[in-house]
């Protein structure tokens, strides 16, 4: 896959940096196109497919991928490509929603711990450890059992369980920035504490977050559709990617495309975000190094 080969190993230093940057370009552009494609699909699906995602055609049931149905058709003869395009909105909503929730929680926890230090830091840090002990799917299954399956349950469960990783990172960032020279200088100049936090500590500590958030959206979609694959997410009539996977499970021995194609959309989207995230990371790190 070209997305993959274009990605050089991480941690390039010094002189190697420019070559890495040029090597990366085609992969990043491709990844950007993939992400743009799915974002357009989420906003205006009709631009990318002229069909109707719910149109049943009993003359073309379970057709394998071919020219008139590039992703094949399902058990009711609905065009799978059109369904994947129309499913993008809900899938992306879940991915962005879960990541946004995780970020809010993580900034609150990690920010407080990093700024306060001492006992508060100890307590919050223990709390983060406790959250880590709930694996993503375990927490999601608990929430589904208690609240019943829904998009909201999915977003909340995936968001909460990805929060501790981000929180730990933000805590480290805030601590590093808090003790840096320019913050000390700003405080020595007598700027009020709130201003120092808002102008210096916060923006600088949040910088690496852009990268993790990019990676996080893809991961959230992967987990949420896993939940749907188990029959505990968005229920099947919906073309949400996980729901498509769930619907295709019964036909796996005779219609592989019903599982493979929606999965391909998830993988392409997640990998593209990873590629962009890594590229951003290198850009940002390069910026600080020089």
């Amino acid at each position, binding site marked *: 896959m070209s997305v993959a080969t274009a990605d050089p190993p*991480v941690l390039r230093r010094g002189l190697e940096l420019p070559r890495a940057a040029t090597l990366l370009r085609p992969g990043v552009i491709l990844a950007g196109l993939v992400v743009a494609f799915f974002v357009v699909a989420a906003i205006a699906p009709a631009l990318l497919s002229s069909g109707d995602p719910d149109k049943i055609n009993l003359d073309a049931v379970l057709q394998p991928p071919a020219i008139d149905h590039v992703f094949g058709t399902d058990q009711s003869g609905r065009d799978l490509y059109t369904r994947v395009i129309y499913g993008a909105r809900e899938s992306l909503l879940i991915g962005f929603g879960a990541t946004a929730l995780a970020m809010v929680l993580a900034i609150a926890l990690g920010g407080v711990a990093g700024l306060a230090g001492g006992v508060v830091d100890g307590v919050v840090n223990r709390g983060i450890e406790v959250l880590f*002990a*709930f694996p993503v*799917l375990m927490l999601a299954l608990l929430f589904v059992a*208690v609240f019943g399956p829904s998009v909201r349950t999915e977003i909340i469960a995936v968001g909460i369980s990805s929060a501790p990783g981000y929180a730990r990172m933000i805590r480290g960032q805030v601590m590093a920035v808090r003790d840096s020279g320019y913050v000390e200088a700003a405080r020595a100049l007598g700027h009020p504490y709130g201003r120092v936090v808002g102008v210096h500590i916060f923006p600088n500590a949040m910088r690496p977050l852009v990268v993790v958030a990019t990676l996080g959206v*893809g991961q959230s979609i992967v987990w949420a559709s896993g939940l749907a694959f188990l029959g505990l997410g968005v229920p099947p009539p919906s073309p949400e990617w996980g729901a498509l996977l769930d619907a295709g499970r019964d036909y*796996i021995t005779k219609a592989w495309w019903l599982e493979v194609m929606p*999965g391909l959309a998830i993988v392409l989207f*997640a*990998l593209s975000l990873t590629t962009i995230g890594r590229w951003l990371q290198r850009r940002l790190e390069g910026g600080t190094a020089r």
Partner: protein
Amino acid sequence: MSAVKAKRALLRILGALLVIWAVATITFFVEAGLSGNRAEALLNQMAGTTRSVERTPAELAPINREYGFDKPLMTQYVEYIGGIARGDFGRSYLQHQSVLTIISRQVGPTIALTVSALVLAWLIMLTRIVVTARRGRFLTGFGSGVEIVSAGLPTYWLGVILLVIFAIDLQIFPVQGETSLVGLVLPAITLAIPLSGFLGQVTRDEFEKVLEQPFVVSARTRGMGDLAVRLRHVLRHAVLPAITLSGWALGALISGAVLVEAVFARPGVGNIIVSAAQSRDVPLVSGIVVLVAIVYVIANLLVDIAYTVVDPRLRST
């Protein structure tokens, strides 16, 4: 063992107990505090309706008494924590058996799956790193590319593809529901590949850093071959972060096992918890969640110990 070390070990164990207590507490309050009228939900469940039917107090009273829902919340909480301390993780609403009994029947296949996947992931990861790290642009790029892609592959998708190719098309492996050793091959590979990518990304960074260390140069000047240097000197240093991450990745491994068991229709704990969540058998789900958390915490304690074995520097400090 010195007094300082004994004290540190004790603190570590106390910390682990604290985490387990907190997990149980959160689980209890999610279960009891947030799920509305539990007696009503339970009655509906027994009647087999998925709709929520209103029940009269007279109908609810015996249920409340039997499950202790009429007691004050704090009393229920103390009893719940006390139960967990004694190894009682609650009773399933639907199967009328203790959570431990239900799990113990099917825990074997899940342990076999996760352990073999973890071992396999390490083997794949180490082979790939030793062969491809710092081996010229093409091979290095290929190795890390494979890592990135495999780390991003969802287990359920990978499982479906392997299933379609090797079981349905080529018919090399049994399709589904097989618990024999042959039936373990595809599920274990499915679970191992993403994990190997995840562990590999970290190990590769470390491996490349260690390759530049003075002791590596010195080993080379003594005339040691490249492969021997990589295996005997570099690897030992480079695996440290991956050991820590293996404990951490256990969560992902367990989540992955749930999905893999679903793809291959294998019996196991994942199978139990998914059907329990589907039928909203809350005590069974929460019992498994607490048990998984305990396994996770213990595994991470063991990782700490493994760390001092691999890295003797930590023993003296």
